[in-house]
């Protein structure tokens, strides 16, 4: 059973490097956790910038990359979160963990304080 579930929402410009499914698979096997990945892309090129109107949209609908991580073991879960934070940095907004369960969110937030999300 997955006691810990977290959704890490990275918005355009947030990850320090491209999020690649191949790398996520590597983390999945290294830490023995479950990882799924979803990319939502609604930006259009305008005046040389990729643009999108986000003001009246639901948070889940704006362009973003969502890494969903789940595990029944706290140490594997935490270890993988730290690895993700080191690679991509921490998600950056107060709502970037929306959709996580309480146990998962608590760990993810605590690790943010320790690994660069302040």
């Amino acid at each position, binding site marked *: 059973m997955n006691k810990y579930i977290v959704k890490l929402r990275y918005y355009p*410009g*947030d990850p320090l490097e491209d999020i690649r499914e191949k790398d996520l698979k590597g983390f999945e096997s290294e830490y023995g956790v479950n990882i799924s990945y979803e990319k939502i892309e609604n930006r259009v090129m305008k005046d040389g910038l*990729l*643009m*999108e109107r*986000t003001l*009246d949209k639901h948070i889940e609908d704006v362009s973003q990359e969502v890494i969903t991580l789940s595990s029944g073991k706290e140490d594997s879960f935490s270890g993988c979160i730290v690895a993700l934070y080191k690679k991509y940095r921490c998600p950056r907004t107060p709502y970037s963990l929306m959709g996580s369960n309480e146990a998962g969110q608590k760990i993810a937030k605590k690790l943010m304080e*320790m690994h660069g999300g302040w």
Partner: protein
Amino acid sequence: MKILALNGSFRKNGNTEILLKQALMGAESEGAEVEILRLTDYKIEPCRGCGLCLFRENVCQVQGDDVSFIFSKVDGCEGVILGAPCYFLELTAVVKQLIDRCWILGHKIGKIKKPAAVIIPYATRGWTPYVSVQSNLLLTLMGLMKINEITVCTQGISEVVLDQEAMDLAFSLGKEIAVAIKKKDFTYKGEAGLCPSCHDWLVRILKDQETVECPTCGVRGKLIFVDGKISMKFEEKAWADARFRPDVQYNHFTYHIAPSKDYFLRTKEERKTLTQKYREYLRKEGE
């Protein structure tokens, strides 16, 4: 060619004002038309943090103060010289007050580019660690590019006139701004600093104790030693993340700020319940 000096000192004919006027004389010698505003002569209300300006362009809840006038003056010139004294490690409060009001300019960050210079008189050496952060921030938020900065060690009112070297530096700075406008060359001409973008010497050590960051630009790198000297090494790709790049600013507004409206609305009822006890606690009469 119009050059505007913004004076962040309350003192009339104090060191900041004298240095600014000296710089304007330098600019005039290059043919500039000049003007000076003492910021403390104007009403600059604190930002109320209401967020209106973030969600609706050019709308501010604060009415009847002079911030729009000051910003219109900046809009109407071709170069700016910002002067402010350092009393306690950073610039004066009026500068910060103006920085906070720059939210309303958020919609045009990165769109205007004009040169600017900075003059900072201070009294005690070593008491100026944060001055460049503030001046860089204010200039950047107003769409200006710093081309040089001088800090001048001086203390009592008007004593700076005794320091001919400082007066000459200020005069040259004014000339430099005018020449930059004429040549359309806004490259940085001052001391290099640790950060190649904002040229500050400040560095923030992250909690991993491996990574360092320019606190103003938000660009991360490594601290290195070259011939025994401390330096910061940035990967080329790190610059894609510099805080005040137009695309980074756009993403910040579009993805960190604008969607917060949805979060704010969907948590309305929960917040209403949870904040009730704080509305009642230590409530003042008439509130």
